[in-house]
């Protein structure tokens, strides 16, 4: 076999098979080719090589090829044969390996053989140099499944994985073994139909907002509403406690601890303390101002005093605040009270209000009213103005304005409208009573027609104030008691007159009201017990008129700056917009009102109570409809922006029109905005502009740089397997500048989206991309191969590559990193102690566990095993592939090894027995030793206990006589003498992946450069920079170039 010198060295050591690129790239000794070297080669071919080729091969590879499809006599010129470099390389491979011409055919002389090989080498060298940088033929690519899913994820912000949901055909691979190669991307009606379905699925998940739209994992509006609520609650939770309580204690504590700093420090000191303590600056400033208030405030002053006296413990201050809060606030968080909130009551009611005029009301179910004002005070008179029946059926009935009723009331009460007991002036519509008096108005004896005019039940109301002549210090509580029982607290807010009732306002002299209301108002403003209604949805929303209840004035005032208020308003408007609740409330209103509208039932009181909200319900519905219409143009603009992102380039004016074409056509047909918008969105994602990575061929005869947008797309699909993000798109125009490219590449490498490359390059390179579904493990034999173990094994290579890429580690770490990326499940599987918890992490110094680099990946070791035992043959073949060598075809009729070794024999022994067959030995002496060195790993990739191995089981002798022992020996061998071979093979794969095609002769220089970088300790960014700056990556072939 050793008949040839130089070029044979490489060729022969690879035996029969040799990957093309090894031929194409391994001969790096430059042959002196003169300036007119091309001419020399041409003439050489014409004069000597072609006749020699015909003589040596033409008998079988002639005009009528026998049992093959290769005619080697047809290449009359060097140019013709060099147009097929694969054929040329194949000739060299078969010739040098000695398997062509076949043993039984006439053999060329040694000199002839050498001459053929020398010419091929020189010609391929010249060709590689001449065409270096050729972008090559890159077949039109559609998005692979991974690319499609990632693109949808990055466009929508939701990881929907439509290709799984719609069961797209699995990706197949081509070129150098990756799923981004046009030739391996068939398109069928079934696939196109899935594209359209998936686009509709995505469009169904668009959530229209007052401004633009977002996406949800769900196509259901209730879920979108829940998401909007969650955002709002998240905002709430950042500002208030679980009951809507403000973070008073923390802020109060800060005012005490930093009292010195804050005193006289002004706004700057407040901002600084807030920042240091991670407190709300607005709230801190409000508290500080309130606590240091100089104006006397009867309810605040005791708190201020406690505060001044306090050291750093806020407890006494808090206690003082709490005591006053209890006097001034009533919360409605008790049973039934939350139901009340859903029906229009405030969650927090102010107690002990002080007013000049109070609208007093009672639920009137029969015509027996009582007017009570307590307590009795000297010379104090109460004015009951516009005593009236309101709500329920019929217009407001002011009793004084109804001739007969006025008289009846006057008769029954003994009072006269418009008449003061002391003849002071009062309005004509008012009755006046002395404080302390109880006036009964019994109209039950009225004639039937008059009774009818009352149309009870309704609210009985009056506007109550003190007579101007009363003492300035006077104060009463007024009650209109109209019901004779029943109805409960909800239906009849005040059913009886209770002197001192904190919910009934103190009505004071008009001139004193403002002053007397001030202390409580000042306290309430600074120390509300809650700043918002935390549940948002009242507890029993089913029975409520209003689904959402907003009560957050204190939050806005005390805790939010302008931006915070805008954010809060945005969240609320999104909740209202997304839930479309205002469209549902009118229906709810009608239903509830109908339910309560029963004659003579206590519950009917609810009817006229709820009736108060009719106007609000209508207004809110109208407002939402207006908001919806107002939002439409914004949705269309956002859709156009979305299309530009999805199509990875700006849209032309015509395209903008076309994108909205279906929308406008739908609207013309009477389709509503929402469905028409979704159709248009589905149309954007069904478009070939999204589905295909179309690139415009270069004009003119030579390859040219692609456009900035196209280059940005190439870059993002390389690193992320996804569409460019906004920053990359913004830089697209200048991306051909090396500095910009480098800056973007480094930025993008750090991004978590490099997982795309880890999966589609890393895991595919190792052949374990589909490990989770296609691991080949016999589950009955390996009960310990649980889904968790399986998934962890499948995940490890991806995590490993993610770690390499995002931390920009040396490329050669794939071989000799003394580190592993594991979670608890995998660490247990590997026997690595001290790893707890499901999160993935890098663990160093793992050589003792047989890990570090790709050779220790359990997924690889398991996949390259038989179903129930190890397979040195499979593992060895995998290593051969890693070395960039190709194995010949498996000959037919090869008897397989038994699935389970016969008793007493080890896997090594059956494998060795098999190798004794001289027909097998040729290849298997090349393959099996690598696998033997990995015998310490079982068929699940675990280290075997020593007792399972016979002595020498892990020893191997390579074909060249080199001894290897165990995985450590193999790793040393691969990372040592074979380092460059492994890295060259990796460089070839990386090139093929980056370019989306098979590597070709003209890539030799690029692969050389890459290999050099990798072997010299280069990092992933170094290697990737070599690629992204190469002509191949940045350029595109012209329209019509002869494809070699």
């Amino acid at each position, binding site marked *: 076999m050793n008949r040839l010198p130089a070029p044979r060295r490489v060729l022969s050591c690879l035996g029969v098979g040799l990957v093309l690129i090894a031929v194409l790239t391994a001969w790096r000794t430059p042959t002196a080719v003169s300036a007119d070297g091309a001419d020399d080669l041409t003439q050489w071919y014409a004069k000597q090589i072609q006749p020699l080729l015909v003589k040596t091969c033409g008998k079988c590879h002639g005009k009528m090829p026998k049992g093959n499809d290769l005619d080697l006599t047809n290449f009359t010129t060097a140019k013709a044969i060099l147009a097929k470099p694969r054929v040329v390389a194949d000739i060299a491979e078969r010739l040098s390996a000695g398997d062509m011409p076949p043993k039984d055919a006439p053999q060329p002389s040694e000199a002839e053989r050498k001459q053929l090989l020398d010419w091929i080498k020189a010609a391929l060298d010249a060709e590689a140099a001449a065409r270096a940088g050729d972008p090559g033929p890159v077949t039109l690519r559609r998005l692979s499944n991974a690319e499609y899913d990632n693109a949808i994820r990055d466009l929508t912000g939701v990881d929907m994985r439509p290709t799984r949901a719609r069961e797209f*055909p699995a990706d197949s691979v081509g070129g150098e073994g990756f799923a981004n190669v046009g030739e391996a991307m068939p398109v069928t009606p079934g696939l196109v139909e899935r594209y359209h379905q998936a686009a509709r699925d995505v469009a169904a998940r668009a959530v229209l907002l007052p401004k633009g739209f977002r996406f949800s994992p769900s196509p259901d509006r209730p879920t979108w509403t829940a998401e909007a609520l969650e955002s709002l609650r998240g905002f709430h939770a950042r500002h208030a406690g679980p009951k809507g309580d403000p973070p008073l204690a923390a802020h109060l504590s800060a005012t005490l601890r930093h009292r010195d700093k804050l005193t006289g420090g002004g706004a700057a000191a407040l901002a600084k303390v807030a920042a240091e303590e991670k407190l709300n600056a607005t709230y801190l400033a409000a508290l500080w101002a309130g606590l240091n208030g100089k104006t006397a405030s009867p309810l605040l002053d005791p708190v201020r005093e406690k505060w001044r006296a306090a050291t750093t413990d806020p407890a006494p201050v808090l206690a003082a605040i709490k005591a006053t809060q209890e006097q001034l606030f009533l919360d409605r968080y008790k049973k039934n009270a939350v139901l009340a909130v859903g029906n229009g009551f405030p969650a927090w009611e102010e107690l002990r209000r002080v007013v000049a005029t109070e609208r007093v009301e009672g639920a009137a179910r029969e015509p027996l009213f009582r007017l009570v004002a307590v307590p009795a005070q000297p010379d104090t008179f109460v004015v009951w103005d516009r005593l009236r029946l309101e709500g329920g059926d019929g217009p407001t009935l002011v009793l004084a304005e109804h001739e007969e009723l006025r008289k009846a009331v006057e008769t029954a009460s003994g009072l006269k409208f418009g008449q003061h007991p002391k003849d002071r002036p009062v309005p004509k519509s008012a009755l006046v009573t002395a404080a302390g008096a109880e006036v009964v108005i019994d109209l039950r004896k009225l004639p039937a027609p008059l009774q009818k005019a009352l149309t009870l039940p309704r609210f009985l109301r009056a506007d109550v104030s003190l007579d101007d002549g009363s003492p300035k210090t006077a104060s009463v509580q007024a009650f209109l008691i109209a019901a004779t029982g029943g109805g409960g607290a909800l239906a009849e807010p005040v059913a009886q007159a209770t002197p001192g009732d904190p919910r009934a306002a103190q009505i004071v002299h008009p001139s004193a009201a403002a002053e007397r209301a001030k202390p409580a108002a000042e306290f309430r403003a600074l120390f509300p017990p809650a700043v918002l209604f935390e549940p948002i949805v009242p507890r029993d929303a089913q029975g409520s008129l209003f689904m959402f209840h907003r009560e957050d004035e204190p939050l806005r005032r005390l805790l939010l700056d302008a931006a915070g208020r805008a954010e809060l308003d945005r969240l609320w408007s999104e909740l209202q917009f997304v839930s479309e609740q205002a469209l549902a409330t009118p229906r709810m209103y009608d239903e509830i009102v109908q339910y309560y509208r029963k004659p003579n039932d206590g519950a009917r009181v609810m009817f006229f109570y709820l009736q108060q909200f009719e106007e609000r319900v209508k207004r809110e519905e109208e407002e939402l409809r207006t908001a919806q219409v107002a939002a439409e143009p914004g949705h269309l603009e956002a859709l156009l922006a979305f299309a530009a992102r999805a199509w990875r380039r700006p849209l032309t004016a015509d395209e903008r029109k*076309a994108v909205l074409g279906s929308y406008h056509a739908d609207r013309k047909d009477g389709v509503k905005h929402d469905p028409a918008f979704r159709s248009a969105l589905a149309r954007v994602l069904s478009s070939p502009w999204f589905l295909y990575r179309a690139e415009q061929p270069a004009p003119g005869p030579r390859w040219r740089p692609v456009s900035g947008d196209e280059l940005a797309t190439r870059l993002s699909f390389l690193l992320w397997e996804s569409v460019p993000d906004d920053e990359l798109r913004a830089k697209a125009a200048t991306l051909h500048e090396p500095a910009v490219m480098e800056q973007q590449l480094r930025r993008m490498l750090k991004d978590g989206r490099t997982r795309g490359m880890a999966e589609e390059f890393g895991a595919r390179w190792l052949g374990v991309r589909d490990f989770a579904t296609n691991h080949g493990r016999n589950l009955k034999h390996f009960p310990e191969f649980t889904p968790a173990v399986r998934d962890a094994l499948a995940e490890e290579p991806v995590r490993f590559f993610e770690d390499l890429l995002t931390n920009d580690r040396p490329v050669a770490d794939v071989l000799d990193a003394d580190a592993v990326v594991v979670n608890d499940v995998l660490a247990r599987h590997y026997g690595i102690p001290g790893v707890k918890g499901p999160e993935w992490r890098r663990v160093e110094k793992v050589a003792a566990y047989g890990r570090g680099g790709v050779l220790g990946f359990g997924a690889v070791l398991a996949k390259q095993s038989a179903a129930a035992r190890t397979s040195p043959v499979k593992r060895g073949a995998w290593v051969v592939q890693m070395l960039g060598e190709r194995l010949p075809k498996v000959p037919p009729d090869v008897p397989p090894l038994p699935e389970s070794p016969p008793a007493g024999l080890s896997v090594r022994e059956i494998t060795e027995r098999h190798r004794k067959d001289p027909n097998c030995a040729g290849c298997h002496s090349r393959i099996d030793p690598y696998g033997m060195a990995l015998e310490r790993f079982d068929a699940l990739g675990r280290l075997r206990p020593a007792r399972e191995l016979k002595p020498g089981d892990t020893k191997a002798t390579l074909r060249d006589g080199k001894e290897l022992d165990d995985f450590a020996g193999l790793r040393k061998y691969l990372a040592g003498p074979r380092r460059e071979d492994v890295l060259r093979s990796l460089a070839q794969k990386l090139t093929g992946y980056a370019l989306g095609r098979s590597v070709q002769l003209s890539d030799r220089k690029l692969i050389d450069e890459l290999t050099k970088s990798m072997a010299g300790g280069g990092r992933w960014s170094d290697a990737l920079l070599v690629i992204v700056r190469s002509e191949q990556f940045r350029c595109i072939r012209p329209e019509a170039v002869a494809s070699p």
Partner: protein
Amino acid sequence: MSTNSAATCSRRTMLRGLGVSVALPWLESLPFAAAANAADRPPTRTLVTFTGMGFHSNHWWAKGEGAKMELGPCLKPLEPWRERLVFLRGLWNEQANNGVIHCMQTGNMLSGAPMSKTEVRTGVSFDQLMAQRMGDRTRIPSLVLGCEGPIPGLQDGHPLLYSSHISWSTAVSPTWTETRPALAFDQLFRTDRNKGDRRVVDAVLEDAKSLRQRLSVSDQQRFEEYLGSVHEIEGRIKRAGKEPAAGGWKPSLTAPDRPRPADGVPAEIPDYWKLMNDIVLLAFRTDSTRIATLKYCNDGSILTHGHVGAKDQHHQMAHTQPKELVAVNQFFMSQLAYLCERMAEVKEGDRTLLDNTTVMHCSSMLHGNHDAKQLPVILLGGAGGKLRGGRVLDYLNAPNRRMCSLFLSLMDWGGLELDRFGDSTARLTGL
């Protein structure tokens, strides 16, 4: 494929010639052989079934004739149907012997076409040629089902796509092979297409037109595959809800007689395969299509048939040939027995559905050692009165033993008469 001149007359090719902007009504202008007056008689259905990696090398045989026919152990489940059975020995696909095992023997199973070793390219399969030429008579042109999904990856540089697809719509596009019962059911009975779908398709075609202009000539050709697919979707939308032409014959079912299967795939292989058989039967009974392909498993199948006591994956067993392989092979044949049984129950005029169907079962190699020099093939059913069962035909030493010659006859019976197909210009003698 230059050798496949009949196939080149497909609608897709015509579209290619006519350019992008012309949307052809689905096949309206193409005449068919044997279509005239056919409406009064029940049509002949064509069903191709496939299992990978052949059969046990010692137990796949048949001899004798008619009721006295003897069947090898692998064929035992078909004993009740031997008088409807034709056992064919010695057929081959010459092109399947030129390449890597498994994938290169499977991708051209039904086309006989050469297979490219550098890209995915072979020929249109005869079932899909029938679908393209005659498929507009029914709701869907053909039903292509599988009970094992494709295995991604390369075998010695060749996509394993070849191993898992026997139906090919174009030279470069394997036909979508539905493996989900529910989605297969939807193919037959879904009608919820609307105007929105139409608008999207129209818009997509507009986009495609402008995108195509930017492409190089070679990519434009590549892009035809997509355009053809969109046009087919367009056709489907147009056809949706359209009833087959009125005629004397009416299918035995007008609507499905069973609910839509659950989403996903049944856990047990026998349940799964039976369900897929039932969907084929349903398709034929409702005349949703007349052409069906059911690939029970891939060549290189990784299924483990534990339900008949097998311990290893089918692929492994094909090599080692343990006795359980016979049980596995019998399980395959029991699928056909089930189909025969059910089809014989369906009355169509004075015949049964079985009389009106041609079932061809085939595999990619005779047995597990990658021998594609002769293939295991059997026919079942009456082919509309044109096929007589109870026979063993040996072509091993005949001058013409091409699978494509058999396909010419299958197409004749199904109503598509061609002069040539694949590598054949003549029908088998004595069939």
